[in-house]
């Protein structure tokens, strides 16, 4: 089986470092940017939601929607708790009724989780044409003067088709969960900013960084061992586009050449579960991947949760 198509949609409001500086004159914006590496972000307009981005992303797909028999909606910004937002998305996309649909609540590891589910559904015979949609609008949870979170997160959605195919491969997978890290990246119910009725995102950046520094290289080595491959056998590494400091550390630990490490956080920011599929699109557009390319994908963060896989395109 293979990933046959990916489309995406970013939030409609573009924010630059100058925008952040003008709104927060006391921030040392260059110090922040030197660590995050993020120069431009896209956030939703006030009435715009992750769900709307999801619809727009999925509507760009060329696939015949009458063939889709599974819909997995990956989000931590649900449009609805009851009923599940996947049912609403199913209706908006006009998918056939003979289609399973559910929400999957994961963040940074969410795309790989969705991919693993789609893969399992296809291998089990429950699906032939699975649609995974990752959609996030963390900006709705972040205070305007939150120096830790605001310079990082963008809002975006990606729609990914996974289908049976005689070419390409998806797997193996690796998963890591550590709930002791939950307090370090969490939505706090206490409203500290009255403009954020859903609660405020809290992140201890240093602790989350330590998690990535400790677990990601280890998980990559485990994944490569499962596939009986080495770092040199991977054509391109696409990690969750958390920030420059995170990717720099992973690169250093695994000794990955710069030309085999994909980065697009500079101009897109951190779109949580959508970072990896958006990166796949941009890597293809820039000629860095094509049919037959072997890519290692890994998402990690909130949870703590980590998921990775190797994909032959």
């Amino acid at each position, binding site marked *: 089986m293979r990933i046959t198509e990916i489309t995406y949609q970013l939030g409609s409001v573009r924010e630059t470092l100058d925008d952040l500086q003008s709104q927060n004159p006391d921030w040392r914006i260059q110090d922040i940017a030197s660590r995050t590496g993020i120069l431009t972000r896209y956030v939703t307009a006030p009435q715009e939601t992750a769900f709307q981005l999801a619809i727009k992303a999925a509507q760009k797909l060329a696939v015949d929607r009458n063939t889709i028999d599974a819909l997995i909606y990956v989000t931590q910004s649900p449009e609805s708790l009851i009923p599940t937002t996947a049912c609403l998305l199913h209706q908006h996309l006009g998918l056939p009724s003979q289609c399973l649909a559910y929400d999957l609540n994961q963040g940074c590891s969410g795309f790989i989780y969705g991919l693993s589910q789609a893969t399992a559904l296809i291998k089990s015979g429950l699906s032939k044409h699975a649609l995974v949609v990752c959609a996030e609008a963390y900006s709705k949870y972040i205070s305007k003067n939150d120096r830790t979170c605001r310079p990082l997160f963008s809002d975006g959605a990606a729609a990914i088709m996974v289908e049976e195919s005689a070419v390409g491969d998806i797997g193996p997978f690796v998963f890591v969960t550590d709930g002791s890290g939950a307090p370090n990246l969490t939505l706090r119910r206490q409203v500290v900013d009255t403009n954020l009725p859903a609660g405020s995102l809290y992140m201890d950046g240093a*602790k989350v960084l330590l998690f990535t520094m400790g677990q990601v290289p280890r998980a990559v080595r485990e994944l490569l061992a499962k596939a009986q491959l080495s770092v040199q056998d991977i054509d391109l590494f696409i990690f969750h586009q958390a920030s420059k400091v995170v990717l720099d550390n992973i690169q250093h630990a695994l000794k990955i050449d710069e030309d085999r490490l994909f980065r697009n956080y500079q101009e897109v920011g951190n779109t949580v579960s959508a970072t990896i599929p958006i990166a796949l699109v941009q890597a293809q557009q820039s000629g860095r991947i094509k049919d037959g390319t072997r890519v290692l994908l890994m998402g990690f963060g909130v949870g703590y949760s980590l998921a990775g896989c190797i994909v032959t395109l």
Partner: protein
Amino acid sequence: MTEKRIKEIIAKALEVDIAQVTNQSSTQTLAQWDSLGHISVLTALDRALDGKLAELKEMENAYSVESILAVLRQHHLID
């Protein structure tokens, strides 16, 4: 790795003079040692220790020179 070398790494990460980094230095005493500075300290120390720092759970709560040295001493990573 010596204690002196650890302090030199911290000083360089925070872009301060080595004389400003004492055993009592911490995120509470040095202006440059804010949340961004702490990230720089962690990454610099991890590089210098060949990736071993990130495996030390105790580092999650080490925000001073004294506490960092204590963790490293506990794990036999400094002389």
